[in-house]
């Protein structure tokens, strides 16, 4: 399996993860809970990272993974604040 269809395979897996992640985030089991939905959102974000990898965007991939962890921090904090102040 030379590097040519490795790149093609990575794009297909990236598309697969994107589709599965988005469908799972919307219609997935028990996703009325915001934290479960946030965990479901992680799958398409990994799919986007795979697409970056397939197109050899090294710098974009590195910044995306770094921003991803900060983004998770912001989202988790927002969910907890919302849960505390909501009701």
């Amino acid at each position, binding site marked *: 399996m030379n590097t040519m269809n490795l790149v093609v395979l*990575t794009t297909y897996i990236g598309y697969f993860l994107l589709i599965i992640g988005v469908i*799972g985030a919307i219609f997935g*089991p028990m996703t009325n809970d915001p934290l479960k939905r946030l965990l479901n959102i992680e799958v398409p974000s*990994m799919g986007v990272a795979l697409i970056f990898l397939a197109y*050899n965007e090294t710098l974009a*991939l590195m910044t995306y993974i770094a921003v991803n962890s900060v983004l*998770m921090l912001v989202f988790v*904090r927002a969910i907890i604040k919302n849960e505390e102040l909501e009701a």
Partner: protein
Amino acid sequence: MDVLPLISILSCILGGIGVILHTDYINKIIMFAFLEAGLIGLITSFYYLDVSIISSILEPIGTVILLLGALKYAHLKRTKKKYSSEVPILAR
């Protein structure tokens, strides 16, 4: 010699489906760590070693953040469900 891309693609697929299907928080996060392992394997199979080192350092940070969030969220939901009936909302 190229078993690593095959294995990491398989683990990406399994991890992605696992995150969606499992309902408990900790199961989801374990499957997310499994998916992340597949991603790092795939980055390494593209010979981007520095991206792989940075990504494998940042992976536990993301996992720990998610774990702390899940812990606090479960704690909040438990205390709210126990006390929400007696304490009127305005008396917060």
